C-alpha cells in the first residue's frame, strides 16, 4: 500500500521525455518473468534496484544479449563484488549498449518519391555504478549513478551525454517475502539528464517502481512490479530441478492514453556449478514480428574454500638433548671454547602431532540474513 501511496504523489506519465534504455530489462531471467525485477535478488536486478546489491557476498558477473525486435542489438554486461567481504556493502558496475544501423537519410527525386541518400548508425549507451548495503536486519538500501550517452553517428548535433541517479530499497518483512522500491532517474533536467549537441536538453523521467518477490513454496517464486509509467509486470519461476528453472511472465504496457497491451514471455534457466544460462522469449502481441529472444550468461564465484588454523593445537614438541661430542683433544683455547659452548642440541625429534584435519570454512558464511535468494538457490 505504501507503494501505491507514493505513486499517487504525482509522478505522472512522461512518455515525451527521453528513454532510459535499461527499461528493456536486465537479464533474460527478468524478461522471462515479464520484466518483474525490482525485488529480483540477482545480480542483474542490481541495475534496476541498487538495493539488490546489498546481499552480494562474492564476485558475480552477468551479461545479456538480444537482437531486439530484429532491429536493435542490445547488449549488457555487469559485475558485482562485496567491499571488504561485504562489511562496507557491495558494488555493481554495468554497461549497456543499444545500437542499430541502416538508418537512411533521404531526399525526394524528380517524381516526388523518397530516395535513399546515405545511411548512418545510432547508439545509446548507459554506464552504471550501483552500491547497496544492509542497514538493518531486514532492510537494504542502495543508490546508482547512471551515465548516458547517445550518438547519431555522422549526423551533426546528434550527440548527447547526461547523468542521472537511482535510489532503491528492499524490505524483508518475512522470510519468504521481499518488497522492493526504486526511484529511477531522480535528477531534474536542470542538473543534467541529456544535453544534446544541438542545444536541446531532454529530461529522463522519474520512474517509481515497486515490486514484490514472494515464495509460497521453496521451489516457487512469484514476482510482480508496477511502475509510475503505467507498466505492470508479473512472472512466476519454478525450480523444477536443482539445475533447471522454468519461468513465465506477462506485462501490461500502455500504448496510449486509453489503451494498453498485454505481452507474454517465457523462458528457462540452466545452472551448472558457478555458471548460469538463461533464455527468454518475449512475445509482442501487437506485432508478432517484434517478438524477441533474450540470452544471458552469468557467473557466480563459488564460495572460496580456505584452510583455517585448527582449533585444537598440537601438543608441544618433545625435545631430547644430547651430550656434546668431542672428537679430538682440543687445545686449551679450544677446550675453553668448548666448555663455554652450550650443549649441542641434536636435531629436534618431533613426534608427529595428531593434527585434526584442516577444516574448510567458507568466508562467505556470515551472519547475513538478507543473502540473495538467488545465491541461496544457486
Amino acid at each position, binding site marked *: 500500500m505504501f507503494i501505491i501511496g507514493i505513486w499517487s504523489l504525482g509522478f505522472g506519465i512522461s512518455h515525451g521525455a527521453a528513454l532510459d534504455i535499461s527499461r528493456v530489462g536486465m537479464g533474460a531471467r527478468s524478461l522471462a518473468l515479464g520484466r518483474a525485477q525490482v525485488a529480483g535478488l540477482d545480480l542483474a536486478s542490481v541495475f534496476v534496484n541498487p538495493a539488490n546489491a546489498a546481499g552480494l557476498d562474492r564476485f558475480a558477473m552477468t551479461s545479456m544479449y538480444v537482437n531486439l525486435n530484429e*532491429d536493435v542489438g542490445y547488449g549488457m554486461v555487469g559485475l558485482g563484488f562485496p567491499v571488504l567481504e561485504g562489511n562496507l556493502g557491495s558494488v555493481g558496475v554495468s554497461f549497456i549498449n543499444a545500437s542499430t544501423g541502416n538508418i537512411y537519410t533521404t531526399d525526394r527525386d524528380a517524381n516526388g518519391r*523518397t530516395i535513399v541518400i546515405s545511411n548512418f548508425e545510432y547508439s545509446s549507451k548507459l554506464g552504471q555504478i550501483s552500491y547497496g548495503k544492509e542497514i538493518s536486519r531486514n532492510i537494504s538500501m542502495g543508490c546508482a549513478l547512471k551515465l548516458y550517452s547517445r550518438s547519431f553517428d555522422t549526423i551533426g548535433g546528434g550527440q548527447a551525454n547526461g547523468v542521472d541517479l537511482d535510489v532503491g530499497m528492499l524490505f524483508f518483512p518475512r522470510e519468504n517475502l521481499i518488497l522492493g522500491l526504486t526511484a529511477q532517474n531522480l535528477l531534474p533536467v536542470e542538473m543534467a539528464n541529456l544535453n544534446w549537441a544541438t542545444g*536541446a536538453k531532454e529530461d529522463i523521467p522519474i520512474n517509481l517502481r515497486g515490486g514484490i518477490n514472494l515464495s509460497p513454496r521453496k521451489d516457487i517464486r512469484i514476482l510482480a512490479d508496477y511502475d509510475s509509467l503505467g507498466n505492470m509486470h508479473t512472472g512466476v519461476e519454478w525450480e523444477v530441478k536443482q539445475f533447471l528453472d522454468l519461468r513465465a511472465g506477462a506485462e501490461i504496457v500502455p500504448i496510449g492514453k486509453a489503451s494498453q497491451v498485454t505481452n507474454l514471455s517465457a523462458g528457462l534457466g540452466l545452472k551448472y556449478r558457478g555458471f548460469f544460462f538463461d533464455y527468454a522469449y518475449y512475445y509482442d502481441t501487437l506485432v508478432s514480428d517484434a517478438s524477441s529472444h533474450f540470452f544471458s550468461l552469468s557467473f557466480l564465484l563459488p564460495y572460496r574454500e580456505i584452510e583455517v588454523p585448527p582449533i585444537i593445537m598440537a601438543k608441544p614438541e618433545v625435545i631430547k638433548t644430547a651430550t656434546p661430542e668431542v672428537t679430538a683433544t682440543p687445545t686449551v683455547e679450544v677446550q675453553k671454547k668448548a666448555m663455554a659452548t652450550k650443549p649441542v642440541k641434536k636435531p629436534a625429534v618431533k613426534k608427529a602431532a595428531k593434527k585434526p584435519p584442516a577444516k574448510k570454512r567458507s568466508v562467505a558464511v556470515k551472519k547475513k540474513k538478507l543473502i540473495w535468494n538467488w545465491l541461496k538457490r544457486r
Partner: protein
Amino acid sequence: MLWLILLLTGGAWAYTVSNEALVSSGGIASSAAYSTLVTLSDGMAGIISATSAPTSDTTAPTIASILFDGRTIINNDLVKSNVAITATVSDAASSIDTSNSSVEVNSQYYSFASLTGQSSFLNGNLRYKPGFQDGTYTFRIHARDTAGNYSSSEAFTFKVEGGEVKVSSAVLNYPNPFNPASGQTTEINYMLNNDADVNLYIYNLIGQCIKKISCAAGAEGGRAGYNRVTWNGESDFGFVVANDIYIARVTSGGKQIGKCKIAVLK
C-alpha cells in the same frame, strides 16, 4: 439528371450514354457531349465523353494525363489487378479518330472504338479497366485525329502482384532525421500490391509501441501502389517524442509487411 441506358446485345457489349457529359470548347459542330460507359464481358470497361467532329486541323491530339485509380504512377509502380486506367485525350480542332487510336498494353492494341463504341470524339476521358493478371505490363496510348495528326504517350511499365498483401521495395520516410519540435513532419512511404487495411505501429528503441496510425483499405496508406502516411512526431500519449530512433512497422492482418527506422533529432 436524365440517363439514357442503352443495351447493345450484339456481341458482349453494354454501354450507357449520359447527356450530362462535357461540352468542349473551340467551335464544335455540336454543343452536346456524351459520357459513355462500355462494359465488355471480359471485364474491360470504358467511359468516354465526346463531341462531334470539327473541321480539319494540323495539331496533334493531346494526351493530358493517364491516371491509375485516379493517381499518377511512375515506372515499375505496383497497381492492383482491377485498376481503372483513365486517360484524358483531346484535340484542339478535329475529333479523335477512335478507329485509329488505341491503348497499347504489352504490344496488344485496343482501339478506342472498340473500347467506347464511338466512332469519334473531340475530347474526353477514356476509362480502361481490363482486370490484369500478375505480371509486368508496358502501357502507352496512341491518339490520331480525323485530320491525320498523331501523338503517343510515353511508354511506361507497371506491375501487378496478386496474392497476400505485401510491401514492395523499401519502406522509407522523408525527411529523416526530422525535427517535430519545429513543426516538421515526416512522411512514411511504401508501395502496396493491393488495397488493404493497414496499421502502422511506431515503436521506440526499447521495443514499446508509442503510436498507432490506422489506414483503411483504398484510402491513403492502405491502397495499392505508392502510399504516403504522415507522422507529426507525437505519441499516443500526447507528447512530442524525444530524440531517438523509432521503428515504424507497417502491418496488415496482424502481420508485419515492412518497416523503417525514423530518426527524431530536435
